[in-house]
């Protein structure tokens, strides 16, 4: 039980190992995480601001029960005692759930999402809820009604979105693991710009029951972590069939943990890697491209055969996505009607009708981006335009799926840069929706087709010293391929770098430090 080392720097797998060996307790790990949150998370005005709610008492109570169970020799699940943060789009019984929106400010769900139920069954202490773009609409976490999250690499820059809070919490060592959701890249793009690992599982691989829906045919929950193995552990803990979600995949889920462990040997002989011609080139930052090219060389060194593949319809994916998403969102968000839960505005006047109260509440409770997309979706679905917009977008979806099918004939996994640029500065794209939407250009095709995707760090861009990500894509239900190839690439890149990329994040060292000796967390 050393007090001289920083427990927050341990990964989830290592935490589990050390707890099993009796070298550290869950209470110590949770206390270290809480102290770190206390030291660096700050507020909407300063600090990382990854958390909207911290559940300190509850997390400590779970940690104590795990430590007692372990002392009593009870068998425990793999991640028992490892703290986890959860994106605020996921319903947590007894813990506020706001979706980053004023319309649900203070709302406490009366039930748990299935994935939360599973995390509780896995006896992971839940640290709290992480910040996000309102209703998961955005690529920068600037659209949170509660103020933005800041990138631990540079506090003047965005942490990606919509899951910027989850990615930043992991990158700033506030949590070893966090749950995210990915509708068009909201796990992978934040992972890329914060130097972490993020995975969007196959659509249906992790239950959506209890997630506040954005676009039901695209949304997918998945893990955020600092290593491929840690991501696999969280993926396995919350995934698998759920009878309460009609789109949940039946049958046996691929063993992603075994695949991550297998990949860590770094051997990729016999693996065919497809370079997607359309995801790169124009519009992609030079430093992002350079790190991507190096990572591809590393895949070759590991024995992989690299081929170029073409996916000609990917160039229509962004447009299709920005029709499908608003259409589904305009329908899903109709439930925020001021009647049964959430905000209600304008019923002081007894003559006010339900319709007037509804309109006033939605005007007051929704932010700009949410209104923009609801109006766009309402238009795209309206009579006379449905075929031209929504109908055409659904045809593009077919073409994108066909492109994937053809590409996976030639390659086991596909690769591309995850995001076209490194983290941009706050406000840079706030009033230009199309510029903001372009961040998701490389991640969106996977959501349209339902295939799994992973982002892991590829290095630091030369221009700005900020992290870039490489994206791996696999066929539906072949998530284990991502973990195998990802772990092999990660192992070789870590060898090259001589240690984790996150150790080089300048802003991490400049946070205010306080005396944490009682919790064993100081550097």
């Amino acid at each position, binding site marked *: 039980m050393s007090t001289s080392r920083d427990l927050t720097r341990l990964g989830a797998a290592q935490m589990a190992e050390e707890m099993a060996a009796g070298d550290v307790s869950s209470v110590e790990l949770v206390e270290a995480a809480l102290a770190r949150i206390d030291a660096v998370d700050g507020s909407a005005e300063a600090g990382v601001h990854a958390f909207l709610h911290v559940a300190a008492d509850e997390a400590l109570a779970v940690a104590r029960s795990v430590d007692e169970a372990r002392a009593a020799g009870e068998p425990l699940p793999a991640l028992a005692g490892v703290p986890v943060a959860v994106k605020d789009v996921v319903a947590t019984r007894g813990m506020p759930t706001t979706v980053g929106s004023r319309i649900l400010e203070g709302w406490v*769900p009366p039930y748990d999402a299935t994935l939360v139920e599973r995390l509780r069954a896995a006896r992971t202490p839940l640290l709290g809820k992480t910040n996000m773009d309102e209703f998961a609409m955005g690529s920068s976490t600037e659209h949170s009604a509660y103020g933005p999250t800041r990138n631990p690499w540079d506090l003047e820059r965005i942490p990606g979105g919509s899951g910027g809070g989850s990615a930043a919490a992991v990158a700033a060592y506030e949590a070893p693991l966090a749950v995210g959701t990915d509708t068009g890249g909201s796990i992978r793009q934040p992972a890329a710009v914060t130097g972490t690992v993020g995975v969007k599982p196959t659509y249906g691989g992790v239950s959506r029951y209890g997630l506040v829906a954005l676009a039901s045919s695209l949304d997918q929950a998945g893990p955020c972590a600092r290593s491929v193995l840690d991501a696999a552990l969280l993926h396995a803990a919350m995934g698998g069939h759920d009878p309460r979600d009609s789109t949940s995949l039946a049958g046996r889920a691929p063993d992603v943990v075994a695949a991550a462990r297998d990949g860590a040997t770094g051997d990729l002989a016999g693996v065919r890697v497809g370079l997607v011609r359309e995801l790169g080139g124009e519009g992609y930052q030079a430093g992002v491209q350079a790190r991507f090219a190096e990572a591809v060389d590393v895949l070759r060194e590991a024995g992989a055969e690299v081929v170029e593949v073409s996916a000609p319809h990917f160039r229509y994916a962004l447009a299709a996505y920005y029709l499908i998403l608003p259409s589904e969102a305009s329908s899903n968000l109709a439930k925020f009607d001021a009647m049964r839960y959430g905000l209600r505005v304008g019923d002081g006047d007894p003559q006010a009708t339900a319709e007037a109260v509804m309109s006033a509440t939605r005007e007051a409770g929704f932010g700009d981006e949410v209104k923009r997309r609801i109006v766009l979706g309402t238009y795209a679905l309206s009579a006379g335009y449905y075929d031209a917009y929504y109908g055409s977008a*659904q045809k593009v*979806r077919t073409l994108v799926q066909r492109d994937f099918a053809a590409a996976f004939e030639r390659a086991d996994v596909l690769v591309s840069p995850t995001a076209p640029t490194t983290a941009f500065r706050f406000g840079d794209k706030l009033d230009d*929706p199309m510029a903001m939407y372009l961040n998701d250009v490389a991640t969106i095709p996977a959501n349209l087709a339902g*295939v799994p995707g992973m982002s892991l760090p590829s290095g630091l861009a030369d221009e700005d010293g900020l992290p870039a990500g490489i994206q791996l894509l696999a066929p539906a239900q072949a998530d284990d391929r991502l973990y195998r190839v990802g772990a092999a690439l990660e192992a070789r890149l870590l060898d090259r770098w001589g240690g984790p990329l996150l150790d080089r994040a300048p802003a991490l060292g400049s946070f205010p430090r306080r005396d944490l000796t009682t919790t064993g967390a100081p550097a």
Partner: protein
Amino acid sequence: MSDTPARSAEQLDADRVAHLAGLARIALTDAERERLAGQLSVVLEAVAQVQEVATPDVPATSHPMPLTNVMRDDVPVPGLSPEAALAGAPAVEDDRFRVPRILEED
């Protein structure tokens, strides 16, 4: 696609945005209508390119996986208690959601 509007996207004006927002039950301010009209016209122009490849021979896909109906045995299971169901309500009266008047006076 022949009965659909022009290939190029329509320009949305503030009145059109007001109408759409009314359908979506959002009481936008005048300034919001103006701003959204400009932004949405740009977005619509960009997304209209889906029509370039959406030819009649391409079937539409609404979902990444084939959907099937999921049924369970018709066995009663406990639901939320009235207290839990009403806990997040903006207004409650006699164990029910209290809502504003649904109908106009006349």
